Protein backbone atom coordinates (compact mmCIF):
# COMPACT_ATOMS: atom_id res chain seq x y z
CA UNK A 1 0.00 0.00 0.00
CA UNK A 2 2.78 2.37 0.96
CA UNK A 3 4.65 1.52 -2.21
CA UNK A 4 1.70 2.45 -4.41
CA UNK A 5 1.12 5.67 -2.53
CA UNK A 6 4.76 6.52 -2.99
CA UNK A 7 4.61 5.97 -6.75
CA UNK A 8 1.23 7.67 -7.00
CA UNK A 9 2.73 10.82 -5.54
CA UNK A 10 5.29 11.06 -8.31
CA UNK A 11 2.84 10.06 -11.02
CA UNK A 12 0.29 12.63 -9.96
CA UNK A 13 2.98 15.26 -9.83
CA UNK A 14 4.06 14.39 -13.33
CA UNK A 15 0.48 14.33 -14.65
CA UNK A 16 -0.32 17.67 -13.07
CA UNK A 17 2.77 19.26 -14.53
CA UNK A 18 2.09 17.86 -18.00
CA UNK A 19 -1.50 19.04 -17.93
CA UNK A 20 -0.40 22.48 -16.82
CA UNK A 21 2.16 22.71 -19.61
CA UNK A 22 -0.32 21.50 -22.21
CA UNK A 23 -2.95 23.98 -21.15
CA UNK A 24 -0.67 26.99 -21.12
CA UNK A 25 -0.93 28.99 -24.32
CA UNK A 26 2.64 28.59 -25.38
CA UNK A 27 3.33 31.44 -27.75
CA UNK A 28 6.09 29.96 -29.81
CA UNK A 29 7.17 32.70 -32.15
CA UNK A 30 8.33 30.44 -34.92
CA UNK A 31 10.65 31.58 -37.65
CA UNK A 32 7.97 32.12 -40.23
CA UNK A 33 6.63 34.35 -42.95
CA UNK A 34 4.48 37.19 -41.71
CA UNK A 35 0.90 36.58 -42.86
CA UNK A 36 -1.00 39.07 -44.98
CA UNK A 37 -3.71 39.50 -42.39
CA UNK A 38 -1.14 40.46 -39.77
CA UNK A 39 0.27 43.12 -42.08
CA UNK A 40 -3.22 44.45 -42.76
CA UNK A 41 -4.02 44.79 -39.06
CA UNK A 42 -0.68 46.41 -38.33
CA UNK A 43 -1.05 48.91 -41.15
CA UNK A 44 -4.59 49.79 -40.08
CA UNK A 45 -3.40 50.44 -36.53
CA UNK A 46 -0.59 52.68 -37.83
CA UNK A 47 -3.03 54.64 -40.00
CA UNK A 48 -5.38 55.15 -37.07
CA UNK A 49 -2.54 56.38 -34.90
CA UNK A 50 -1.50 58.83 -37.60
CA UNK A 51 -5.05 60.18 -37.91
CA UNK A 52 -5.34 60.44 -34.15
CA UNK A 53 -2.11 62.38 -33.87
CA UNK A 54 -3.20 64.73 -36.63
CA UNK A 55 -6.45 65.27 -34.76
CA UNK A 56 -4.68 66.03 -31.52
CA UNK A 57 -2.48 68.54 -33.32
CA UNK A 58 -5.40 70.62 -34.54
CA UNK A 59 -5.77 74.01 -32.92
CA UNK A 60 -9.52 73.71 -32.42
CA UNK A 61 -9.17 70.30 -30.78
CA UNK A 62 -6.35 71.54 -28.58
CA UNK A 63 -8.37 74.51 -27.40
CA UNK A 64 -11.31 72.27 -26.48
CA UNK A 65 -9.00 70.04 -24.48
CA UNK A 66 -7.42 72.98 -22.69
CA UNK A 67 -10.88 74.32 -21.91
CA UNK A 68 -11.61 70.94 -20.30
CA UNK A 69 -8.42 71.19 -18.28
CA UNK A 70 -6.50 68.57 -20.27
CA UNK A 71 -2.92 69.13 -21.32
CA UNK A 72 -2.59 68.35 -25.06
CA UNK A 73 1.01 67.21 -24.58
CA UNK A 74 0.03 64.81 -21.85
CA UNK A 75 -2.87 63.56 -23.97
CA UNK A 76 -0.57 62.87 -26.91
CA UNK A 77 1.86 61.01 -24.66
CA UNK A 78 -0.93 58.83 -23.36
CA UNK A 79 -2.28 58.10 -26.84
CA UNK A 80 1.22 57.03 -27.84
CA UNK A 81 1.19 54.53 -25.02
CA UNK A 82 -2.06 52.89 -26.15
CA UNK A 83 -1.68 49.34 -27.37
CA UNK A 84 -2.68 48.37 -30.91
CA UNK A 85 -5.77 46.65 -29.51
CA UNK A 86 -6.89 49.82 -27.75
CA UNK A 87 -6.19 51.88 -30.85
CA UNK A 88 -8.40 49.53 -32.88
CA UNK A 89 -11.14 49.76 -30.25
CA UNK A 90 -11.02 53.51 -30.65
CA UNK A 91 -11.07 53.19 -34.43
CA UNK A 92 -14.15 50.98 -34.25
CA UNK A 93 -16.01 53.58 -32.23
CA UNK A 94 -14.93 56.32 -34.59
CA UNK A 95 -16.15 54.25 -37.54
CA UNK A 96 -19.61 54.21 -36.03
CA UNK A 97 -19.83 57.98 -36.16
CA UNK A 98 -22.14 59.37 -38.85
CA UNK A 99 -20.09 60.35 -41.83
CA UNK A 100 -20.46 62.95 -44.53
CA UNK A 101 -23.44 64.83 -43.16
CA UNK A 102 -24.58 67.02 -46.02
CA UNK A 103 -27.63 68.40 -44.27
CA UNK A 104 -26.07 68.85 -40.86
CA UNK A 105 -22.76 70.04 -42.12
CA UNK A 106 -21.11 72.48 -39.79
CA UNK A 107 -23.01 71.41 -36.69
CA UNK A 108 -21.94 67.81 -37.14
CA UNK A 109 -18.34 68.89 -37.59
CA UNK A 110 -18.18 70.70 -34.27
CA UNK A 111 -20.08 68.02 -32.40
CA UNK A 112 -17.89 65.33 -33.95
CA UNK A 113 -14.75 66.96 -32.69
CA UNK A 114 -16.10 67.25 -29.18
CA UNK A 115 -17.19 63.63 -29.27
CA UNK A 116 -13.83 62.41 -30.46
CA UNK A 117 -11.99 64.44 -27.86
CA UNK A 118 -14.22 63.04 -25.13
CA UNK A 119 -13.73 59.51 -26.42
CA UNK A 120 -9.98 59.86 -26.33
CA UNK A 121 -9.91 61.39 -22.89
CA UNK A 122 -12.23 58.67 -21.63
CA UNK A 123 -9.89 55.97 -22.84
CA UNK A 124 -6.97 57.79 -21.35
CA UNK A 125 -8.79 57.99 -18.05
CA UNK A 126 -9.23 61.72 -17.76
CA UNK A 127 -12.97 61.62 -18.01
CA UNK A 128 -15.71 59.09 -17.48
CA UNK A 129 -18.31 60.14 -19.99
CA UNK A 130 -19.03 56.96 -21.95
CA UNK A 131 -20.06 53.67 -20.46
CA UNK A 132 -18.78 51.62 -23.40
CA UNK A 133 -15.20 52.61 -22.69
CA UNK A 134 -13.34 50.22 -20.42
CA UNK A 135 -11.75 52.58 -18.00
CA UNK A 136 -8.18 51.90 -16.93
CA UNK A 137 -7.98 51.51 -13.17
CA UNK A 138 -5.94 54.58 -12.34
Amino acid at each position, binding site marked *: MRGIRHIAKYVSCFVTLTMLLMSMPVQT*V*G*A*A*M*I*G*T*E*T*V*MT*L*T*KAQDVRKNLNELLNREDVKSIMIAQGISPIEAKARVDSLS*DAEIMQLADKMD*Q*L*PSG*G*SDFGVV*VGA*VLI*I*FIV*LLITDILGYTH*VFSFVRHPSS
Partner: protein
Amino acid sequence: MQSYSIVLLFVAGMLFSGCAGLNRPVHPEQAAGVPSRVELEAVPFYPQKEYQCGPAALAMALRWSGLPISPEDLTDEVFTPSRKGSLQTAMISSARRHGRIAYVLTGLNDMVSEVAAGNPVIVLQNLGLSWYPVWHYAVVVGYDLSEKVVVLRSGIIYRKHMSFRVFDNTWARGNYWGLLILQPDQLPATAKEDLFLSAVLGLEKARQFRAAVDGYHTALTRWPKNLTAHIGIGNSYYALGELENAEKAFRKAICFHSNSGPAYNNLAHILLEQGRKQEALEAARKAVFFGGPLSSAYQKTLEEIEGFKRE
Protein backbone atom coordinates in the same frame (compact mmCIF):
# COMPACT_ATOMS: atom_id res chain seq x y z
CA MET B 1 -21.61 73.09 -18.24
CA GLN B 2 -25.31 73.20 -19.25
CA SER B 3 -24.58 73.59 -22.95
CA TYR B 4 -21.99 70.82 -22.62
CA SER B 5 -24.59 68.28 -21.53
CA ILE B 6 -26.97 69.42 -24.26
CA VAL B 7 -24.25 68.76 -26.80
CA LEU B 8 -23.71 65.35 -25.30
CA LEU B 9 -27.40 64.50 -25.50
CA PHE B 10 -27.47 65.62 -29.10
CA VAL B 11 -24.51 63.46 -30.00
CA ALA B 12 -25.96 60.51 -28.13
CA GLY B 13 -29.26 60.98 -29.92
CA MET B 14 -27.54 60.95 -33.26
CA LEU B 15 -25.61 57.85 -32.41
CA PHE B 16 -28.44 55.81 -31.01
CA SER B 17 -30.76 56.52 -33.88
CA GLY B 18 -28.21 54.38 -35.63
CA CYS B 19 -26.11 55.20 -38.60
CA ALA B 20 -28.92 53.75 -40.67
CA GLY B 21 -31.05 56.62 -39.48
CA LEU B 22 -28.76 59.28 -40.85
CA ASN B 23 -27.82 57.18 -43.84
CA ARG B 24 -31.40 57.01 -45.10
CA PRO B 25 -31.05 58.40 -48.60
CA VAL B 26 -34.39 57.78 -50.24
CA HIS B 27 -33.26 60.25 -52.84
CA PRO B 28 -30.58 58.28 -54.62
CA GLU B 29 -30.21 60.89 -57.30
CA GLN B 30 -27.54 62.09 -54.92
CA ALA B 31 -25.46 59.24 -56.35
CA ALA B 32 -23.62 61.53 -58.67
CA GLY B 33 -23.33 61.00 -62.36
CA VAL B 34 -25.53 57.94 -62.82
CA PRO B 35 -27.97 57.50 -65.67
CA SER B 36 -31.56 58.03 -64.64
CA ARG B 37 -32.54 54.55 -65.77
CA VAL B 38 -30.51 51.33 -65.87
CA GLU B 39 -31.53 47.72 -66.28
CA LEU B 40 -29.08 44.85 -66.57
CA GLU B 41 -31.36 42.70 -68.68
CA ALA B 42 -28.78 40.01 -69.29
CA VAL B 43 -28.48 39.04 -65.63
CA PRO B 44 -29.61 35.40 -65.60
CA PHE B 45 -32.62 34.22 -63.63
CA TYR B 46 -33.01 31.19 -61.41
CA PRO B 47 -36.47 30.92 -59.92
CA GLN B 48 -35.92 29.87 -56.36
CA LYS B 49 -36.99 26.62 -54.80
CA GLU B 50 -38.58 26.69 -51.36
CA TYR B 51 -36.33 28.55 -48.89
CA GLN B 52 -33.56 28.51 -51.48
CA CYS B 53 -33.43 32.21 -52.24
CA GLY B 54 -29.80 32.31 -51.06
CA PRO B 55 -28.45 29.75 -53.52
CA ALA B 56 -30.63 31.22 -56.29
CA ALA B 57 -29.44 34.78 -55.72
CA LEU B 58 -25.81 33.76 -55.42
CA ALA B 59 -26.00 31.56 -58.51
CA MET B 60 -27.38 34.46 -60.54
CA ALA B 61 -24.57 36.74 -59.42
CA LEU B 62 -21.88 34.09 -59.91
CA ARG B 63 -23.14 33.23 -63.35
CA TRP B 64 -23.13 36.93 -64.23
CA SER B 65 -19.48 37.00 -63.14
CA GLY B 66 -18.68 34.27 -65.65
CA LEU B 67 -19.03 31.08 -63.61
CA PRO B 68 -21.33 28.44 -65.10
CA ILE B 69 -23.07 27.39 -61.92
CA SER B 70 -26.60 26.59 -60.77
CA PRO B 71 -28.32 26.95 -57.38
CA GLU B 72 -28.17 23.19 -56.77
CA ASP B 73 -24.37 23.34 -56.92
CA LEU B 74 -24.40 25.92 -54.14
CA THR B 75 -26.96 24.52 -51.76
CA ASP B 76 -24.50 22.58 -49.61
CA GLU B 77 -22.16 25.55 -49.24
CA VAL B 78 -24.75 28.22 -48.67
CA PHE B 79 -27.95 26.79 -47.23
CA THR B 80 -28.28 25.92 -43.54
CA PRO B 81 -31.15 23.41 -43.24
CA SER B 82 -31.68 24.01 -39.52
CA ARG B 83 -32.17 27.73 -40.19
CA LYS B 84 -34.21 27.09 -43.35
CA GLY B 85 -32.12 29.77 -44.95
CA SER B 86 -28.71 30.99 -45.95
CA LEU B 87 -26.45 32.94 -43.64
CA GLN B 88 -24.78 36.06 -45.02
CA THR B 89 -21.38 34.74 -44.00
CA ALA B 90 -22.07 31.52 -45.90
CA MET B 91 -22.91 33.51 -49.02
CA ILE B 92 -19.63 35.39 -48.72
CA SER B 93 -17.45 32.36 -48.06
CA SER B 94 -19.08 30.41 -50.88
CA ALA B 95 -18.34 33.19 -53.36
CA ARG B 96 -14.73 33.24 -52.17
CA ARG B 97 -14.35 29.50 -52.55
CA HIS B 98 -15.31 29.98 -56.18
CA GLY B 99 -12.57 32.56 -56.64
CA ARG B 100 -14.77 35.62 -56.61
CA ILE B 101 -14.47 38.90 -54.75
CA ALA B 102 -17.33 39.20 -52.27
CA TYR B 103 -17.64 42.91 -51.50
CA VAL B 104 -20.20 44.14 -48.97
CA LEU B 105 -21.80 47.49 -49.61
CA THR B 106 -24.32 49.51 -47.65
CA GLY B 107 -26.98 51.96 -48.71
CA LEU B 108 -29.02 53.02 -51.69
CA ASN B 109 -26.49 55.48 -53.13
CA ASP B 110 -23.74 52.88 -53.42
CA MET B 111 -26.18 50.30 -54.71
CA VAL B 112 -27.38 52.57 -57.49
CA SER B 113 -23.79 53.45 -58.42
CA GLU B 114 -22.87 49.79 -58.70
CA VAL B 115 -25.88 48.88 -60.82
CA ALA B 116 -25.11 51.86 -63.05
CA ALA B 117 -21.60 50.45 -63.43
CA GLY B 118 -23.02 47.14 -64.59
CA ASN B 119 -22.83 45.18 -61.34
CA PRO B 120 -25.96 43.47 -60.01
CA VAL B 121 -26.27 43.62 -56.23
CA ILE B 122 -27.50 40.82 -53.97
CA VAL B 123 -29.62 42.32 -51.20
CA LEU B 124 -31.04 40.94 -47.98
CA GLN B 125 -34.56 42.12 -47.34
CA ASN B 126 -37.08 41.58 -44.59
CA LEU B 127 -40.33 41.14 -46.45
CA GLY B 128 -42.24 40.56 -43.24
CA LEU B 129 -42.55 42.60 -40.08
CA SER B 130 -39.90 43.64 -37.63
CA TRP B 131 -41.34 41.30 -35.02
CA TYR B 132 -42.07 38.55 -37.54
CA PRO B 133 -39.30 38.77 -40.09
CA VAL B 134 -39.33 37.04 -43.45
CA TRP B 135 -35.74 37.22 -44.65
CA HIS B 136 -35.18 37.08 -48.36
CA TYR B 137 -32.29 37.40 -50.77
CA ALA B 138 -32.96 39.06 -54.09
CA VAL B 139 -30.79 40.51 -56.85
CA VAL B 140 -31.11 44.15 -57.85
CA VAL B 141 -30.67 44.41 -61.60
CA GLY B 142 -32.04 47.87 -62.31
CA TYR B 143 -33.54 51.12 -61.15
CA ASP B 144 -35.45 54.08 -62.49
CA LEU B 145 -34.85 57.40 -60.75
CA SER B 146 -37.82 59.20 -62.26
CA GLU B 147 -40.28 56.38 -61.63
CA LYS B 148 -38.56 55.80 -58.30
CA VAL B 149 -38.49 52.03 -58.65
CA VAL B 150 -35.99 49.25 -58.21
CA VAL B 151 -36.01 46.19 -60.46
CA LEU B 152 -35.18 42.85 -58.83
CA ARG B 153 -34.86 39.18 -59.68
CA SER B 154 -36.77 37.92 -56.70
CA GLY B 155 -38.23 34.57 -55.75
CA ILE B 156 -40.02 33.27 -58.82
CA ILE B 157 -40.43 36.71 -60.37
CA TYR B 158 -38.08 37.52 -63.22
CA ARG B 159 -38.64 41.28 -63.10
CA LYS B 160 -40.05 42.47 -59.82
CA HIS B 161 -40.67 46.20 -59.48
CA MET B 162 -40.53 47.76 -56.06
CA SER B 163 -40.90 51.43 -55.20
CA PHE B 164 -37.90 53.07 -53.57
CA ARG B 165 -39.94 53.60 -50.43
CA VAL B 166 -40.95 49.97 -50.01
CA PHE B 167 -37.52 48.74 -51.05
CA ASP B 168 -35.91 51.05 -48.54
CA ASN B 169 -38.19 49.82 -45.76
CA THR B 170 -37.50 46.15 -46.48
CA TRP B 171 -33.79 46.69 -46.98
CA ALA B 172 -33.38 48.89 -43.93
CA ARG B 173 -34.38 46.04 -41.63
CA GLY B 174 -31.43 44.08 -43.01
CA ASN B 175 -29.20 47.07 -42.28
CA TYR B 176 -28.93 47.85 -45.96
CA TRP B 177 -26.69 44.82 -46.51
CA GLY B 178 -25.72 44.40 -50.15
CA LEU B 179 -23.25 42.02 -51.76
CA LEU B 180 -21.27 42.44 -54.95
CA ILE B 181 -19.80 39.38 -56.64
CA LEU B 182 -16.91 40.31 -58.89
CA GLN B 183 -14.05 38.73 -60.76
CA PRO B 184 -10.73 39.53 -59.09
CA ASP B 185 -9.71 41.87 -61.88
CA GLN B 186 -12.70 44.12 -61.29
CA LEU B 187 -12.97 46.99 -58.85
CA PRO B 188 -16.36 47.95 -57.46
CA ALA B 189 -17.44 51.39 -58.65
CA THR B 190 -17.69 52.48 -55.02
CA ALA B 191 -14.61 50.57 -53.85
CA LYS B 192 -13.13 51.56 -50.50
CA GLU B 193 -9.51 50.63 -49.87
CA ASP B 194 -9.94 48.76 -46.56
CA LEU B 195 -13.03 46.86 -47.65
CA PHE B 196 -11.59 45.81 -50.98
CA LEU B 197 -8.36 44.60 -49.41
CA SER B 198 -10.41 42.63 -46.90
CA ALA B 199 -12.32 41.00 -49.72
CA VAL B 200 -9.09 39.97 -51.46
CA LEU B 201 -7.63 38.75 -48.19
CA GLY B 202 -10.72 36.57 -47.95
CA LEU B 203 -9.71 34.94 -51.23
CA GLU B 204 -6.23 34.26 -49.90
CA LYS B 205 -7.63 32.71 -46.74
CA ALA B 206 -9.96 30.55 -48.83
CA ARG B 207 -6.77 29.31 -50.54
CA GLN B 208 -7.77 30.79 -53.88
CA PHE B 209 -4.21 32.00 -54.37
CA ARG B 210 -4.32 32.70 -58.10
CA ALA B 211 -7.47 34.77 -57.66
CA ALA B 212 -5.88 36.50 -54.67
CA VAL B 213 -2.85 37.50 -56.76
CA ASP B 214 -5.20 39.00 -59.34
CA GLY B 215 -7.22 40.74 -56.68
CA TYR B 216 -4.20 42.29 -55.00
CA HIS B 217 -2.94 43.49 -58.40
CA THR B 218 -6.34 45.05 -58.99
CA ALA B 219 -6.04 46.82 -55.64
CA LEU B 220 -2.65 48.18 -56.69
CA THR B 221 -4.11 49.75 -59.83
CA ARG B 222 -6.08 52.08 -57.55
CA TRP B 223 -3.82 52.17 -54.49
CA PRO B 224 -0.31 51.48 -55.82
CA LYS B 225 1.49 51.83 -52.49
CA ASN B 226 -0.76 49.57 -50.44
CA LEU B 227 1.61 47.43 -48.38
CA THR B 228 -0.95 44.73 -47.62
CA ALA B 229 -1.47 44.17 -51.33
CA HIS B 230 2.26 43.82 -52.03
CA ILE B 231 2.77 41.42 -49.14
CA GLY B 232 -0.36 39.55 -50.18
CA ILE B 233 1.00 39.01 -53.68
CA GLY B 234 4.26 37.72 -52.26
CA ASN B 235 2.59 35.40 -49.78
CA SER B 236 0.15 34.09 -52.38
CA TYR B 237 2.92 33.35 -54.89
CA TYR B 238 4.80 31.61 -52.11
CA ALA B 239 1.78 29.44 -51.43
CA LEU B 240 1.67 28.62 -55.14
CA GLY B 241 5.33 27.65 -55.02
CA GLU B 242 6.38 30.45 -57.37
CA LEU B 243 9.41 31.69 -55.46
CA GLU B 244 10.74 34.04 -58.14
CA ASN B 245 7.44 35.87 -58.39
CA ALA B 246 7.21 35.98 -54.60
CA GLU B 247 10.68 37.49 -54.40
CA LYS B 248 9.74 40.15 -56.97
CA ALA B 249 6.67 41.05 -54.99
CA PHE B 250 8.51 41.48 -51.69
CA ARG B 251 11.18 43.58 -53.41
CA LYS B 252 8.40 45.76 -54.84
CA ALA B 253 6.99 46.14 -51.35
CA ILE B 254 10.41 47.35 -50.19
CA CYS B 255 10.51 49.82 -53.08
CA PHE B 256 7.42 51.52 -51.71
CA HIS B 257 8.08 50.89 -48.01
CA SER B 258 11.81 50.91 -47.47
CA ASN B 259 11.55 50.19 -43.74
CA SER B 260 9.00 47.39 -43.83
CA GLY B 261 9.94 44.60 -41.43
CA PRO B 262 7.42 42.09 -42.85
CA ALA B 263 8.67 42.65 -46.41
CA TYR B 264 12.31 42.03 -45.45
CA ASN B 265 11.41 39.13 -43.20
CA ASN B 266 9.40 37.34 -45.86
CA LEU B 267 12.00 38.12 -48.52
CA ALA B 268 14.60 36.49 -46.29
CA HIS B 269 12.57 33.28 -46.17
CA ILE B 270 12.17 33.25 -49.95
CA LEU B 271 15.92 33.76 -50.47
CA LEU B 272 16.75 31.03 -48.00
CA GLU B 273 14.50 28.58 -49.82
CA GLN B 274 16.29 29.42 -53.03
CA GLY B 275 19.60 28.57 -51.34
CA ARG B 276 20.82 32.17 -51.34
CA LYS B 277 21.90 32.19 -47.74
CA GLN B 278 24.04 35.32 -47.74
CA GLU B 279 21.32 37.45 -49.30
CA ALA B 280 18.81 35.91 -46.91
CA LEU B 281 21.00 36.90 -44.00
CA GLU B 282 21.15 40.51 -45.19
CA ALA B 283 17.41 40.70 -45.62
CA ALA B 284 16.76 39.18 -42.20
CA ARG B 285 19.19 41.61 -40.61
CA LYS B 286 17.35 44.51 -42.22
CA ALA B 287 14.07 43.25 -40.80
CA VAL B 288 15.57 43.06 -37.32
CA PHE B 289 17.08 46.51 -37.78
CA PHE B 290 13.75 48.10 -38.68
CA GLY B 291 12.03 46.17 -35.90
CA GLY B 292 8.52 46.99 -34.77
CA PRO B 293 5.82 44.95 -33.01
CA LEU B 294 6.88 41.78 -34.83
CA SER B 295 10.58 42.08 -34.08
CA SER B 296 10.71 38.80 -32.16
CA ALA B 297 9.52 37.01 -35.31
CA TYR B 298 12.27 38.70 -37.33
CA GLN B 299 14.81 37.67 -34.73
CA LYS B 300 13.71 34.06 -35.05
CA THR B 301 14.02 34.28 -38.82
CA LEU B 302 17.56 35.58 -38.48
CA GLU B 303 18.49 32.82 -36.06
CA GLU B 304 17.05 30.18 -38.35
CA ILE B 305 19.07 31.46 -41.29
CA GLU B 306 22.25 31.76 -39.26
CA GLY B 307 21.89 28.18 -38.13
CA PHE B 308 21.19 26.92 -41.63
CA LYS B 309 23.83 24.51 -42.81
CA ARG B 310 24.57 24.56 -46.50
CA GLU B 311 24.20 21.02 -47.92
